[in-house]
C-alpha cells in the first residue's frame, strides 16, 4: 500500500538525526539572509516599507531551500551510502513505488520547511524593522506573494533533490555536484550570461521568490519552468530506480 510506504519513508526520516540538524540550519540560513538583507539596506525608516524593499528583503527567505535540496538527495542516495537500499527493495520490489513515496515525503518536508522558514524570516524581519523605526508592511501583497513563492521554491527543490539522489547514487558526488551547480555554475551564468542563465533551474527559483534581479523571468513563468525541470527530474529518477540493478 502506498500509504504504508509513505509512512515508512517518514519513519526513516524521523528515526535518524538528519531532520534535527537540517531544519534548524535551514531556518538559521533563511533568517540570517533576511536579517542581512535588511541590515545592508541603504536608508532605514520608512524607506524599508516600500514594496521594492520588502521584495528585496523577503526574496532571500528561500535561502534554506538549498539545505532541503541536500536533504532530498540524502533521502534517496543515502540508502545507497548506508547500504539500506537492498533491504528497502526487498520489502518493495516494485521500486518506482519507493521513489514515489520518497518524492511525496520530500515534497511535504519541503513545504513544511518552507512554511517554517517563511514564518521565522517574516517574524525576524518584523522585529528588525521595528528596531530600525519602520513598520513591517504585512498588508502589502508583495509580502505574501514572495512568501508563497518561497514555499513553492522550497517544495520543488526538495523534489529535485530526491530525484537527483536517485539519478546519482553516490551521495557525496550528488551533494557536491548539486551545490557546485546551483551555487557556482548557475550563479556565474545568471550574472554573466543572463540570456542563458535565466532559463536554468536556480534562476527560475529566484524568479519564483521575486528576486529583484535584472534578467530573470516573471514569477509565474519561473514557476512553470521550475515545475517542468522538477517533473523531468522526477520522471528520470523514477526510471533510473526502476531499471537499474541495486
Amino acid at each position, binding site marked *: 500500500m502506498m500509504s*504504508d510506504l509513505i509512512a*515508512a519513508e517518514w*519513519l*526513516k526520516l524521523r528515526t535518524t538525526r538528519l531532520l534535527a540538524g537540517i531544519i534548524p540550519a535551514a531556518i538559521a540560513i533563511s533568517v540570517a539572509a533576511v536579517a542581512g538583507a535588511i541590515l545592508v539596506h541603504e536608508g532605514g525608516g520608512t524607506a524599508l516599507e516600500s514594496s521594492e524593499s520588502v521584495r528585496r528583503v523577503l526574496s532571500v527567505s528561500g535561502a534554506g531551500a538549498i539545505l532541503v535540496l541536500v536533504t532530498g538527495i540524502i533521502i534517496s542516495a543515502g540508502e545507497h551510502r*548506508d547500504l539500506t537500499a537492498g*533491504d528497502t527493495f*526487498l*520489502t518493495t520490489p516494485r521500486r518506482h513505488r519507493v521513489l514515489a513515496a520518497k518524492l511525496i515525503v520530500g515534497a511535504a518536508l519541503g513545504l513544511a520547511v518552507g512554511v517554517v522558514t517563511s514564518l521565522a524570516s517574516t517574524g525576524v524581519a518584523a522585529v528588525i524593522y521595528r528596531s530600525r523605526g519602520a513598520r513591517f508592511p504585512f498588508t502589502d501583497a508583495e509580502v505574501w506573494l514572495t512568501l508563497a513563492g518561497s514555499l513553492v521554491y522550497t517544495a520543488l527543490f526538495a523534489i529535485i533533490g530526491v530525484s537527483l539522489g536517485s539519478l546519482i547514487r553516490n551521495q557525496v558526488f550528488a551533494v557536491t555536484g548539486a551545490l557546485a551547480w546551483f551555487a557556482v555554475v548557475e550563479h556565474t551564468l545568471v550574472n554573466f550570461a543572463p540570456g542563458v542563465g535565466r532559463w536554468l533551474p536556480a534562476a527560475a527559483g529566484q524568479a519564483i521568490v521575486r528576486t529583484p534581479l535584472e534578467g530573470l523571468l516573471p514569477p509565474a513563468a519561473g514557476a512553470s519552468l521550475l515545475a517542468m525541470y522538477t517533473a523531468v527530474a522526477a520522471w528520470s529518477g523514477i526510471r533510473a530506480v526502476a531499471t537499474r*540493478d541495486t
Partner: protein
Amino acid sequence: MIEVRALTKTYGSRRAVRDLSFTAPSGKVTGFLGPNGAGKTTTFRCLLGLAEPTSGAALIDGAAYRDLAAPRRHVGAVLESTGFHPGRTGSNHLRVIVRAAGLDAARIDPLLEVVGLRTASEQRVGGYSLGMRQRLAIAAALLGDPKVLVLDEPANGLDPEGVRWIRRLMRTWADEGRTVVVSSHLLAEVAQAVDRVVIIREGALVKEADIADLTAEHATVRVDRTAAMLGALRAAGADHEVLADGTIAVPGRSPSEIGGIAARAGATVIELGQRAPAEALEAIYLAATAEIE
C-alpha cells in the same frame, strides 16, 4: 522451493553467473557453496529481484521475486551487502520494515529476544558489533515469518557460539518445512547443517546433490591386500584416497561397485562402508574448487 533455470548474469564483459540451474526444495537446508567470487551473491541478487538476469530465471515457488504478492511474508533474506543507517536504533530499523511491508509490529520484541538483541535494541546501530548487525539482519529477515530463507554468508562476523546458533536455526526452519538456502565460502561453517549442496565455480554449476547421495556414492573399503586393491582401482579408473588408518576412500563409487572391484582383485574385504557426510562433502568441495587455487 527455489528454482534457478539457466541463469546468466553478465556485468560488462564479465560473466558473473553462467547458465546456472539448480533447485532448493522446501524442508531442506541447501548449501550454496563456492569460493569467494564464484557468483553466489550475484545469484542471490537475481533471485531476490535486486539485479535483473541477463538471461534465464530465478524463481521462488514458481514466481519471480518482483511478482510475489507479499515479499516479506514469503521470503526472508540476509544479504552480505546489506547495511544499516548508523544513526537509527535496532528496533527502529525493524519498525521501518514492518511499516513498509504492512507487517505486525508485535513480532518485533519477541524477535529481538530470539536474536539476543533485546537489551541493545534502543541503541544506535552505529555502535553495534559485526555480530550484532548480523543478528539484526536475521531478525529483519524473520519479521514476515517467511516460508523461504535466503542467507548469504550468515556466519560472517558471528562468534563460534553464533555460528552454532545459526546452524540450529536453519535446521529448525527446514524441519518446519521452510526452504532454506545458505551460501558460504567456508565449508566447515555449514557442512554439518546442510541436507543438500549446490557447488559453483566461476559462475557455473559444479555439483548439485543431496548429502545422502554424496555418501552413497562415496565408498570406503578396508582390504587385506591393499596394494592389489589400489592397482585394481587404478585399472578401473577410480579416483581414490588412502586414509590414515589404511581405509581406501573412493569418491563417485558405491560400496557395491567397490566390493566387485575387490573381488576381482582377489582382495578380501575387511570392512566396506560409506564416507561420513562431512568428509564426503569436503572431498567433493575440495575437488570442485582445487583447480583454480
